[in-house]
């Protein structure tokens, strides 16, 4: 179809849908807020809907039937902002999963300042390690179960439907069909799993009790705060509270109610608060600092993190509305009886929505400052502080303190820091490198800010060269909007392009190898085994180069402008290295793992024992393109850092290795559900971790 040039492409496609799930459309006091309009970025859509990022395929394998696919470009549908919300129309289901998934994706892109790319499909074949996946698949009616999960293997989300036995028969009709694909929270939650997989693929691997709990908690945080960005919902609820100054309690109660509509999905939020038996009012739950040490089941553990982030949000909101409430009550703190002034309602809702947006952004941006493997909640707190300090230099409203305080009250402390303050939680700024001008000349010699790291001049210069290379990458990729191209260019910059005469690029992988394959400095920066004696640690030699093998899993350009105008131009690189670890009568022994993952044999084809595993170290390197310095190195060392001193042989990081071994073997007593016990093959070996995790 051609459009006259006077017609601009619309920025949004409006699609009607539920703010929560269908059950609230049946209650007279919530129906008004439950039906909202999702504004989804305009894109060309095929029936399905199938767009650039997602494709909805409505095949129901339990009856071996396809349900007719909705065409959102149909005139009638376009003319009325999408189909009417309806439980009995599968085409509305298709429209709704599309709308919520795209809203979630959009929120991530806004926060990260870049395009979302799905985790590629692992091929692990000679010459073809992985394959680009353009679209996430959404299967709205994939099973008959109170379950929905993201499948990292199929790059798909499978939604179930079931016949309900409700906790509250006034909300759900008994025996009625309940569709998980009609819950905003469930769709947002699962989409977040998929996005997170594309950013940190090793977070599917349970190496400590926090990893899967983080996956769950993070997905829930996104679903929760996405709700608060719908101002209609907030306005309605704030107006209802009238003179209640504790509107923050209302937000907490709301947050919990969001989750409970369909079955157990609200359980993560039980840690936020509870209804007081005596006063019948909601009150936040007093955090117990012991929980973090004792609670191991991924959902229960995740709920600690959700509660921490939510408390930070409430405190931020409180401080944001303090002045409004003083004005409205003439400083008395007591609002007049009766309805609130609609302007005040608007402003309060606006502040809540803004605070929610900020918290969501902080939580999402922190992903760029997380280590690529073995994340703990403490690491995540440090990542939140670091990423926020980079984006917003002057923390006028004490957002960062609000986070630190909420984590502290739950006993979540990062390892290896001496005091709990913004300065010590922020990852140390390394600033290693040289500023090199366009002609390749060294202009400035900046010394490291960091006292612990004594880096040779050679290393600084080499890192400067790397930085120049990354600048080229940044320039090449800056204006590319096609996601497949972004992926392709990034892979080329990582792996290099050979045999193409006019475009010969030595990739980052090769460059690092040539320059740092035996560099005690680089080993100390990354915690990875860039040392001569790597073989005795159980690390494979590289196939292409001399030196140890390692993987550059991700490379991304971070280009953002902070609210105060501060411009951020960084390239973030994730590096992962693996070492084989087996155990003889509980005693550790290294082995060289075979080339491709999941093998049952070592590199020589010898069978490895059942309890052997690949132990991973990893490091996230943040390069600042403007100053051309290596700014942060956020590491989960594979080597024992104390062994990286002159004259000492390198040693594997036994502290991390042993705690991972203990965690894997405590599996049956540490928070596995009965389903996993019966049907799993060990929590660390599941190909579909979320299918098991979401068994309810």
């Amino acid at each position, binding site marked *: 179809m051609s459009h006259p040039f006077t017609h601009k492409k619309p920025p949004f496609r409006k699609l009607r849908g539920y703010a929560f799930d269908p059950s609230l459309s049946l209650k007279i006091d919530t129906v008004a807020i439950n039906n909202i309009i999702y504004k989804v970025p305009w894109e060309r859509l095929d029936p399905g809907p199938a767009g650039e990022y997602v494709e909805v395929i409505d095949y129901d394998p339990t009856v071996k039937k396809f349900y007719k696919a909705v065409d959102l470009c149909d005139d009638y549908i376009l003319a009325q902002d999408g189909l009417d919300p309806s439980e009995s129309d599968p085409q509305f289901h298709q429209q709704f999963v599309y709308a919520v998934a795209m809203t979630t994706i959009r929120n991530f892109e806004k926060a990260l300042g870049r395009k979302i790319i799905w985790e590629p499909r692992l091929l692990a074949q000679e010459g073809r390690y992985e394959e680009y996946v353009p679209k996430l698949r959404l299967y709205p009616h994939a099973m008959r179960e109170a379950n929905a999960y993201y499948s990292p293997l*199929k790059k*798909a989300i499978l939604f179930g439907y079931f016949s309900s036995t409700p906790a509250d028969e006034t909300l759900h009709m008994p025996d009625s069909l309940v569709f998980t694909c009609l819950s905003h929270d469930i769709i947002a939650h699962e989409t977040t799993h998929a996005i997170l997989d594309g950013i940190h693929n090793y977070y599917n691997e349970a190496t400590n009790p926090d990893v899967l709990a983080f996956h769950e908690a993070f997905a829930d945080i996104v679903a929760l705060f996405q709700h608060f960005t719908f101002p209609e919902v907030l306005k309605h609820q704030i107006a209802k509270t009238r003179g209640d100054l504790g509107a923050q309690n209302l937000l907490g109660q709301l947050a919990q109610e969001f989750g409970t509509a369909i079955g157990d999905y609200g359980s993560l939020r039980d840690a936020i608060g509870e209804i007081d038996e005596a006063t019948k009012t909601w009150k936040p739950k007093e955090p117990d600092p012991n929980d973090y040490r004792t609670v191991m089941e991924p959902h229960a553990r995740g709920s600690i993190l959700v509660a921490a982030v939510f408390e930070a949000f409430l405190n931020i909101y409180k401080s944001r509305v303090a002045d409004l409430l003083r004005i409205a009550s003439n400083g008395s703190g007591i609002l007049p009886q009766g309805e609130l002034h609609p302007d005040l309602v608007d402003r309060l809702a606006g502040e809540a929505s803004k605070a929610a947006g900020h918290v969501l952004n902080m939580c999402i941006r922190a992903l760029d400052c997380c280590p690529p493997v073995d994340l703990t909640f403490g690491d995540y707190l440090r990542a939140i502080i670091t990423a926020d300090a980079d984006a917003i230099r002057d923390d006028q409203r004490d957002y960062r303190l609000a986070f630190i305080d909420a984590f502290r009250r739950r006993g979540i402390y990062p390892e290896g820091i001496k005091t709990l303050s913004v300065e010590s939680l922020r990852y140390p700024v390394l600033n290693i490198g040289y500023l090199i001008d366009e002609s390749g000349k060294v202009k400035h010699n900046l010394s490291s800010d960091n006292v612990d790291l004594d880096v040779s001049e050679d290393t600084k210069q080499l890192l400067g060269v790397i930085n120049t290379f990354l600048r080229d990458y940044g320039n090449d990729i800056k204006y590319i909007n096609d996601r497949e191209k972004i992926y392709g260019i990034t892979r080329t910059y990582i792996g290099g392009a050979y045999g193409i005469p006019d475009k010969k690029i030595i990739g980052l992988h090769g460059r690092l190898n040539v320059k740092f394959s035996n560099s005690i400095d680089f080993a100390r920066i990354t915690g990875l085994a860039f040392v001569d004696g790597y073989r005795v640690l159980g690390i494979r030699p590289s196939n292409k180069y001399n030196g140890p093998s390692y993987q550059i899993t991700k490379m991304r350009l971070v280009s953002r402008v902070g609210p105060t105008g501060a411009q951020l131009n960084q390239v973030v690189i994730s590096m992962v290295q693996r070492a084989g670890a087996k155990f003889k009568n509980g005693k550790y022994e290294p082995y060289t793992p075979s080339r491709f993952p999941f093998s049952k044999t070592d590199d020589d084809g010898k069978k490895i024992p059942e309890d052997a595993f690949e132990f991973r170290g990893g490091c996230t390197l943040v390069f600042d393109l403007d100053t051309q310095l290596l700014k942060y190195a956020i590491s989960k060392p594979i080597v024992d850092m104390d062994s990286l001193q002159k004259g000492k042989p390198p040693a594997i990081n036994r502290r991390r290795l042993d705690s991972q071994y203990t965690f894997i073997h405590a599996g049956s007593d540490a928070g596995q559900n*009965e389903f996993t016990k019966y049907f799993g093959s060990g929590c660390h070996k599941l190909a579909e971790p979320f299918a098991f995790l979401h068994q309810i």
Partner: protein
Amino acid sequence: MAKTTKKTATRLKTSSTPARSASTPAARIDNVSVRMYCMGTGDCFLVKFHSGKQAVFTMMIDCGSCRGSQSDFTPYLQDLAGSLTNKTIDLLVVTHEHNDHVNGFDKCYDIFKGLTIKEAWFAWTEDPTDPTGAAAVLKQQQQKMRTGLRNAIDALDKDRQAFLADKRHNAFRIPLEDNHAAFLMGLNTLASINLSDIPNDDKPSLPGMRKIKQLLAEKKTKIRYLTPGSSLDLSQLPGLTFHVLGPPASRDSIFRSGKAGTDVYNKNLALNNSSLPVNAFLGLSGDIARNDLPFSSVYIDEPPSGKVQSPPAAKAMLPANAASQAETAAAPVGKGSDSVINAYFDPSYDWRRIDNDWLNSAGALALRLNSHINNTSLVLAIESTGTNKVILFPGDAEFGSWESWHCIEEWKTKGKDGKPWAEDLLNRTVFYKVGHHLSYNGTALEKGILMMKDPNLAAMATLDRHRIAKGWTSTMPNKPLLQELLRRTQGKLFIMDEFEVMPPPSSQLDPSTLGEDAYIAFTSNGKLLYKQYTLSV
């Protein structure tokens, strides 16, 4: 100890053998021996009630094991038969219909044929003439679930074979093979307990249950179906009362799961949650019409019939005009969705298909079926009205049942200080047959073990990790439960075999030091036949 004697609401005076009740009153029972036959993980108990040295009354509870054939069971059951006075079982109790509780009746049918069985007790859920009709509904539902589970296992097996036969490269082959194997192993474990081991057996009940009922009918044995809240006095056992705690009278309790994390794992046991997948699984055995579609048929996009299963063919078979066809077929909105169908069957994307993922619901189904049947366990508390001591045989009751004991209407405030009667009974329990082989679900925490406060508490558990369904090794024993039991019994916890039980109870208390009057471990031809604990009542 409290000396309050309770009059219960419904006390049934039984006179199973009128001839005897007319004779001289029986002597007071002062000790009871509980003999656990060690046939492998599973229950087979012989309980003898003594007056002094004289065995007055013999009760048998269940006969089954996860593992073993007729020849494996025979030595144990021959010993059992040989130890009976006049080859007579005065009372046979069959707690619930799981193979590890009833398969002995089938495998060693001939031994039972030669015995006299005077009376038999079953739970009300087994009553074919249950006036409320609830038992029939439950049986029907169980039957559907069994067939569904069987179909699902067959389909998953086929899927696995197809996966193994598919030699194309797959980066995840090894973990997927492991996962498949583990999943099927878990299913087969539950199937081995819940399904008949006879091929193509489509009878509505398990062979063991079928056979014993048939035998009892032939022998014209008096049968009672018991409901919770009733108490029974037997004329041969003066001073003892049998209280029936379970199975719960309401189906809600049978299908209830507890609070996650405290008493049971979080799972959705509700009956209706399995009805949809069960229907789909029933559809697997060919009759697709039985499936209930979730939407009106106008929304169905019909690909050429029968082609859904074979991807490359399906694509070729799709007519080019599928779109126009769809439109003429009164499509509510939109153009045809052949692009979606094509995308799904695109051979280069067949790794993303979801044809069989839904079969994994069989896992939840199997767990539910298993718990449902456990919750239909007949639960007996035997109370001595003289000493107030209580012996508890809960079968394999799970949380929903344990919880319901405390809510039995007639007994809600009958206990000491107005407590529920069940709590009172638990407080006074001196012998506890551990539910469900020391698993997490078999013993309630707050409403169960934490209420067993008697310092003389002893317990027996039918766990033998040499002979166990494979999938159970990860759940049995449950460590916290084991530790709690050890604490409360001070080591008087007799496990069928302590292999791989850490810490073994005998390390805390060597049972042989209790003396032969209290404890016997009987071995014949190098084989441990039974463990027996005798307590005074």
